[in-house]
């Protein structure tokens, strides 16, 4: 089925991006996970009507995209696909919050529109950050970093296995739904009955596969303990990376830079205007 292949493709592409070798890619994964988390927390800590102050935060994705040599178009496209889902709830705000909070010339802008726009900007920033994290770090490394930051090993192992077999099982699922589609002739045969049987088959196959994997693990001396490679060290570079971005985030959080710029510019303009 086209959609299955489509979504697996995104997965593959992000994974390929992570295989690049740039300054950012070489950093220890923990540093990147921390910075992205800090970024997201800082961004969402803004009040609901704040809009302009969030804009400078785009500096983070911009710098990362450039330094990590990510294809900006790809990231933008992916983000654009996701935003509508986040905005779906925000779009109700203009209905329920009509108090005018801002006006430009004769246009009055209600709080609802402001907070809706704020939600969209937040969504763009947070989604971009999350996607970038995988693109500059790689899923495996993110898992490793999370483990070293305290995530239980059982979950790490779960994630690694899952990532490994996503493609295999997605292929199975795609093949099965292809078989169904070829004999379903339109909507007939796409009902719950065939779906349940198909999913049941997929489940049995997956289960049996898990049993064989377990056998393979036992055959190689598995005794319940997982030895994960822990490469990479949190050195000076990482420290600088985290501290640097933290400083930037804090400055941006507590000074509304666009407003300052705007203030300066308008003042300049006004000053000129006052001179007859």
């Amino acid at each position, binding site marked *: *089925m086209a959609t299955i292949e489509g979504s697996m493709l995104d997965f593959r592409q992000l994974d390929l991006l992570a295989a690049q070798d740039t300054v950012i890619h070489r950093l220890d994964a923990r540093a990147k996970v921390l910075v992205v988390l800090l970024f*997201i*927390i800082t961004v*969402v800590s803004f009040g*609901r009507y704040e809009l*302009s102050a969030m*804009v400078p935060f*785009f500096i983070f994705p*911009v*710098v990362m995209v*450039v330094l990590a*040599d990510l294809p900006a178009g790809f990231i933008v496209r992916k983000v654009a696909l996701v935003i509508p*889902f*986040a905005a779906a709830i*925000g779009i*109700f705000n203009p209905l329920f*919050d009509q108090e*005018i909070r*801002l*006006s430009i010339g004769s246009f*009055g802008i209600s709080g609802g529109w402001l*907070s809706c726009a*704020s939600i969209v900007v*937040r969504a763009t920033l*947070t989604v971009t950050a*999350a*996607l970038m*994290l995988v693109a500059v770090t790689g*899923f495996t490394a993110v898992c490793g970093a999370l483990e070293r930051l305290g995530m239980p*090993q059982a*979950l790490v192992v*779960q*994630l690694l*296995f899952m990532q490994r*077999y*996503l493609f295999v099982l997605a292929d199975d699922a*795609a093949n099965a*739904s292809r078989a169904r589609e070829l004999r379903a002739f339109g909507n007939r045969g*796409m*009902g*719950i009955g*065939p779906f*349940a*049987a*198909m*999913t049941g088959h997929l489940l049995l196959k997956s*289960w049996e596969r*898990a049993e064989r*994997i*377990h056998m393979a693990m036992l055959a190689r001396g*598995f005794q319940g303990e997982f030895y994960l490679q822990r490469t990479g060290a949190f050195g000076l570079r990482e420290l600088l990376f985290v501290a640097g971005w933290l400083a930037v985030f804090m400055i941006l*959080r507590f000074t509304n830079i666009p*407003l*300052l710029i*705007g*203030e300066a510019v*308008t*003042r300049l303009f*006004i000053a000129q205007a*006052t001179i007859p």
Partner: protein
Amino acid sequence: MHMADALVSPAVGGTMWAVSAGAVAYSSSRLRAEVDDRRVPLMGVMGAFLFAAQMINFSIPGTGSSGHLGGGILLAILLGPHAALLAITGVLIVQALFFADGGLLALGCNIFNMGVIPAFLVYPLLYKRLAGQDPGGTRLTFAIVVSALVTLQLGPFAVVLETLFSGLSALPFTTFLLMMQPVHLAIGLVEGVVTAAVISFVYLARPELMHVARRTAAAMVFPMRNLLIAFVCAAVLTGGVVSLVASKDPDGLEWAITRVTGTAELTSPDTKLHMLLAAIQEKVAFLPDYAFKKPVASEQSASARAENRGTSLAGIVGVGITLVLLIVAGALLKRGRASL
């Protein structure tokens, strides 16, 4: 039903993170204690299975629309609650990282809504009681459908509460509730029917699979109470701490920093500006009169209006310039890198 980062406040996100992290940690330790290491690859593969299965569509009779499996209850029944929670968490993390479904901060909410609720609330408290020890066809189906219905009522309800407490959406509580619950009643029914059909298929094919789940489920009944207490404590604690640092109104984080640094100016760069603008406005007609006049008379005070005008103008100009600067900075950086 995924919560997005954009709709979550740090307080709500942090609290739910703590709760879900607690549940995940608890499940992990329970699984570690188990001797059966067969489960290690099983959980991972079943997570991948759920992922793959969610991509298969079916058409819902009589509606012309199509649906897909949710799978929370399915995994809980097949793997037992602890393994199911980890498997679902895995799916949600992959969705958050690769498909930007939900988000990193909202992950806590999503794990709770779609993992903790089916695995730790609905499964032990409802499903097990309804299904009993060795359920036959009808009873099993009934138990599954009811469990799915309840899961898909509690989940969206949690979404409503989390959104509400985050304070970013202006949707009134009842409106939001009315939007979410009835729709999910239908979704829950479909989910229940589909899950029951899949389970009964597996039950016919390999009945022994179901015993694996039953064995571990039996082991989890007692510590439920401790677990719940732990959750509540974690929630209250983090909720308290986080909201102290970052309550939504007034902007707590700023407030806290102001207290620390003692620089009130930091927080309100616009006070200076609005005074300035108000003063200027009286002296000069910077723009023709009507430009600053609002079409609808508002109840705001003149100074507040002036503040708004000033802020908006400076804000818009500033945002524009910032964006240009960002683009220029990006382009320059790129050139710099390319020439390296």
